[in-house]
């Protein structure tokens, strides 16, 4: 699946997007954030406060307990500040 990052999540991780292949035991957004956090310091920094991270699954807002099975694109970003 594709992971995409925005705003300071993107800046901390240092990339806009990447292909990821989490293991089968990662079933929901919360698990995926934990798995990503372990990929390196930049990820640990980006996800140091998981509660503030917002997620979109295939371009629709999702909660941290949402299943990720079948998702093609999962986005991680801070709370939105548009408008």
């Amino acid at each position, binding site marked *: 699946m594709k992971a995409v990052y*925005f705003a300071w999540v993107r800046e901390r991780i240092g990339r806009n997007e990447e292909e990821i292949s989490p293991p089968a035991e990662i079933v929901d957004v919360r698990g995926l954030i934990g798995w990503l956090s372990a990929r390196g310091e930049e990820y640990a920094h980006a996800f140091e406060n998981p509660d503030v991270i917002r997620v979109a699954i295939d371009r629709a*807002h999702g909660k941290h307990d949402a299943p990720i099975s079948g998702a093609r694109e999962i986005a991680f*970003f801070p*709370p*939105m*500040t*548009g*408008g």
Partner: protein
Amino acid sequence: MTPRILIQTADFDAAAEVAAMTRDRRDIGAVVTFTGLCRDEGGRLAALELEHYPGMAEEEIARMVARAAARWPLDAVTVIHRVGKIAPGAQIVLVIAASSHRAAAFAGAEFLMDYLKTSAPFWKKEHPIDGPATEWVAARDEDDRALEKWRA
């Protein structure tokens, strides 16, 4: 009702958008337009920079418009959100809601603005006037609380 939804770096012309929306119509009684401008925050700000999630931003705005249209009798809706660098005093966002009823036009426009602030995937970064260090704008509790009035 097919909304007009645009995300663009270019500026917009609110009057031209209203004119396009109401041209040849004799049934629209009320048009409410919201224009959001870049403030200089007391002279502190050189510019705002807006990032968005291409694809999702348009889709999320379309979902908001659909919710608004299900709730109020809206005849036409336009939403334009700029991205990129924006100078103080310049326009950032435009929401137009038209209806035969003024209460619907007001409620539709304010509902869309409240959800644009909190649910549309846009992020603002401040470029201060006194140095290169930029800072992401933090989400405000006030904006989350603004949603409560739509939960009644």
